[in-house]
């Protein structure tokens, strides 16, 4: 027996499993919007059930993540521990503050529940984590690891470095945002800033395609003077 809606209902499974090309997803959603309520409800119910099933199925593929991930996540959401690097210029700081103000307004508009809570002053890092387009890239640096969480929409990123060897005496690490226009300094870190871990907000990503690190004399340089020793692609 073939019901008129069989062609639609059979799509509930691939829809729930994210196994449809985007164009087909949009097509199904259009059909559902036009379908009688019982059909749309039956489809939604089927999708819900398949997703509950896959939640159960997740027991079969469970694997413990690396333990460092927990610490990274918790420091990411725990605003009390965020430190900002010394900015290289006042312009840098002004942009950061302006961006932060703009973001707080944006978040406040999201929902009454959020806006009504007492002074949810978000740190710059929180705003990055809260961005809809937040992305994470990371790289091994010798024995340590650098992780950069960034948002193009917020035009800012948050750098966490754990167990990276500090720069040799008389040198600093300098961060650079690389773009077609060249390398723009994003701040320096001395031994005290690096060890044992660093958290820093980098505003003004612009159209940079990578975050790179070099060794420079104290105070930093205007352009990189040594080869890049680590690079995180932001492309």
């Amino acid at each position: 027996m073939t019901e008129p809606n069989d062609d639609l209902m059979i799509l509930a499974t691939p829809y729930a499993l994210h196994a449809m090309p985007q164009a087909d997803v949009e097509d199904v959603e259009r059909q559902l919007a036009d379908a009688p309520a019982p059909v749309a409800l039956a489809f939604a119910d089927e999708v819900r059930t398949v997703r509950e099933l896959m939640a159960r199925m997740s027991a079969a593929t469970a694997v413990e993540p690396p333990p460092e991930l927990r610490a990274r996540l918790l420091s990411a959401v725990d605003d009390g521990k965020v430190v900002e690097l010394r900015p290289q210029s006042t312009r840098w700081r002004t942009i950061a503050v302006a961006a932060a103000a703009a973001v707080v307004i944006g978040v406040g508009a999201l929902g009454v529940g959020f806006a009504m809570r007492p002074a949810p002053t978000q740190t710059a890092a929180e705003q990055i984590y809260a961005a809809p387009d937040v992305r994470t890239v990371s790289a091994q640096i010798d024995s340590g690891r650098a992780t950069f969480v960034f948002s193009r929409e917020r035009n800012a990123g948050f750098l966490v470095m754990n167990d990276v060897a500090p720069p040799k005496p008389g040198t600093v690490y300098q961060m650079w945002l690389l773009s077609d226009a060249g390398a723009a300094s994003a701040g320096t870190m001395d031994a005290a800033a690096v060890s044992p871990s660093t958290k820093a907000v980098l505003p003004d990503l612009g159209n940079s395609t990578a975050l790179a690190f070099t060794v420079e004399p104290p105070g930093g340089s205007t352009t990189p003077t040594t080869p890049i020793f680590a690079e995180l692609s932001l492309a």
Partner: protein
Amino acid sequence: MTVLVTASSTLRGVTADLDALLRRVAQRDVEAFAAFYDNTRARVYGLVVRVLRDPGYSEETTQDIYLQVWRNAQGYNPAVGTPLAWLMTLAHRRAVDRVRSEQATSQRESRYGAANVDPPADRVAEAVIQLDEQRQVNACLESLTDPQRECIQLAYYEGLTYVQVSERLAANLATIKSRMRDGIRGLRKCLGVS
């Protein structure tokens, strides 16, 4: 950190705990977030690594998933499903998006087309996933026909669309859709999910 799930608790218990935790996460409760992570991390990371086949990408994607949880906990709607289903749907979506964008940008098909990388079961904390449950789920997967299991493997665990599955298996689209539906029905019946 509080351990909310003991080896004897059932999935129902986990779900009830997750519901309460997620409500606290929505209030920006870092400790609740940590507990939520501890109760679900193996499921999430395990699924992501199964789909992405790359520990580095999987770590990044898992981090993004939990940041999304932190950000969107207040948007969780119990009417749409349990917190675990909400989380695993979100996790799968992000993993699949990552696979598709990597495939689109780099064409490193071989990376994802490789043979199954089945995780060693002993790496999973017993407190989080009951071994009984794991055995039951695996037994149910085994109970499917080979074509059904293959369809679910390719679509869900490799992130292929049904169009790609039909190309991979040289079968027509209607057949693939039916196999997918029947495979899922089989699993539902086997696990008693209705």
